[in-house]
């Protein structure tokens, strides 16, 4: 048990992010959008946790909250520091939510974020060289005079060339821009990266290049990833553990093999069956959900999924399902997870 605890890089407990809905002249709070509603998970060193869900499920908000790019409403995020960051806080195990802003900035050498849209994440007036030098400049790593070498190494790590340095982001293709974003994120050799839909805006043939790059860098630099995507097939390829989100909550979490061969939540089942299979002869027996994803400002009672769930019974309308844990740390929130025989990914 103890050995496992040492192994954990980041532990998220009870994370919530609520956005107030304000109306009226005096901007009174009339309701809450529960974008992230009590999520819990742990990620081990060197592992990739895939966070998957459709639009509005809160996965991007969760990713930003973990890095405090958005301030969480509640919850704690325990993190094991690897570098000597010279924080005011002396311990190596810290709670990210409790750091001062000065310490948080220093911690950002270790925890990084990669955006979905690599174009808007760059200052349009700065060229690649400025973009890549910035992490070094901010954290004071310029006195060694080998900044040029470091930047050249970054470029070759991500498959870019030195003559790209003087160019500006808008002169590159989507895939190349994402490479620049990745290069900036790994500049200071971080330990933990939150990648928020990093390949969703790229062409299919480029997606696989970038996914391969993520894997290569992970092996090379022992990176730990929280990989957020709506694309289940990308998640299936890259994740060690998968967490499925719906309306701000994690409904199922398991290791890769278990989730896909033995799903225990009806939403996971329908998500898997909805992926169009690139095989025209595939027998098409999709599970089609009724209706739309409900609004996060007005979630259904009981289990949030019950209005669209074909297995729903009375209890599902009234009570939110308790956590059930199966073999190999397979977490599910469903009243009938033990009795349902759900269809795996074929």
């Amino acid at each position: 048990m103890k050995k496992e605890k040492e192994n954990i890089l980041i532990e998220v407990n009870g994370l919530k992010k609520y956005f107030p809905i304000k109306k009226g002249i005096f901007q009174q709070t009339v309701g809450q959008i529960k974008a992230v509603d009590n999520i819990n998970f742990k990620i081990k060193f060197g592992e990739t946790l895939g966070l998957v869900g459709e639009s509005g499920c809160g996965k991007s908000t969760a990713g930003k909250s973990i890095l405090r790019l958005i301030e969480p409403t509640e919850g704690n995020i325990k993190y094991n520091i690897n570098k000597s960051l010279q924080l005011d806080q002396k311990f190596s195990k810290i709670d990210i939510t409790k750091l001062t802003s000065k310490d948080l900035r220093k911690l950002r050498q270790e925890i990084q974020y990669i955006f979905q849209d690599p174009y808007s994440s760059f200052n349009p007036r700065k060229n690649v060289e400025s973009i890549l030098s910035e992490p070094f400049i901010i954290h004071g790593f310029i006195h060694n005079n080998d900044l040029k070498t470091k930047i050249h190494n970054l470029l070759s790590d991500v498959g870019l060339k030195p003559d790209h340095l003087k160019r500006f982001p808008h002169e590159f293709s989507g895939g190349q821009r994402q490479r620049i974003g990745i290069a900036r994120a790994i500049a200071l050799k971080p330990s933990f990266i939150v990648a928020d839909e990093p390949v969703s805006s790229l062409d299919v043939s480029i997606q696989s290049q970038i996914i391969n790059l993520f894997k290569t860098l992970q092996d090379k630099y022992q990176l730990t990833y929280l990989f957020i995507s709506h694309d289940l097939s990308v998640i299936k390829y890259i994740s060690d553990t998968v967490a499925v989100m719906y309306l701000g909550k994690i409904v199922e979490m398991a290791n890769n093999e278990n989730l896909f061969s033995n799903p225990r939540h009806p939403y996971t089942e329908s998500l898997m069956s909805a992926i169009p299979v690139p095989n025209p002869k595939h027998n098409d027996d999709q599970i089609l959900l009724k209706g739309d994803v409900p609004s996060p400002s007005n979630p259904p009672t009981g289990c949030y999924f019950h209005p669209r769930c074909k297995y729903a019974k009375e209890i599902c309308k009234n009570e939110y399902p308790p956590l059930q844990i199966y073999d190999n740390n397979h977490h599910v929130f469903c009243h009938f997870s033990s009795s349902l025989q759900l269809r795996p990914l074929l």
Partner: protein
Amino acid sequence: MKDSLLKLLIKGFLKRKISLVGLVIFLFFIFCGIFGSYLTPYDPYKTKFSNRYELPNNKNLFGTDWAGRDVLSRVLVGAGITLKISILALCIGSVIGGILGIIIGFMKNSLLKMLIIQINDILLTFPFLVLAILISALLGSSLNNAIIAIGISRIPRYVRIFSLVVNSEKNKNYVISAISIGASNMRILFYHILPNILPIFLVNTVLFFALTIIAEATLSFIGIGAQPPLPSWGLMIRQASENMLVYPFGVIPPSIAILLVVLSANLMSDGLREFMDPKLR
């Protein structure tokens, strides 16, 4: 980085040739403003009542006014006055307004911020000229007070523009991205946001420049700006208009001077368009 901003500026002007015309006129105006008083053929204040209301001739290229003074000399010195007024008013209005706007825009959302913005919006409901006249009347009629009044009247507009612009830039992905690599607030403001709002500042200041001249002319025209015998263009128009029936030509030289300078400002702002958003093509 500064090099590329300059290059963009030049490129923009070359692309829109008409803005070059504006630039030339503007530079000529500055030249006259600085050196005008040394180039006057006659003393602009010397009256010669035997020589009143002369039309343009060999001796007085722009004619003489109601007191026999050489109009060309007065226009040249007037350029200097106009230049002084516009620079000072610009400093007061755009610099103070800009700094205030940037600070407010960068503030976190709070009741205080909302309050300040509301007060500013109330001030904005006053038309610029009305506000200038009001403040000028409160301070007393003089050229310097007119300058202060014009400068202050422009502050609400700058505060509004920059608070909005900085607020929106602050929420953009590239700023969040800078935060995510550990940039401090100072760095975000000066290294990231400021260069992106510099073009807006420049365009607004050029347009403000044009407004300043018109405002000064208006204030002088109604008597609460420059006081005689200063050859401010606005005052010259006022004095000439009083004598329109006898000497209709009198209003023309100062009016054309104002027209040309204001035109040059508007033409130049066109050339700045390229500068504004070149990278997002």
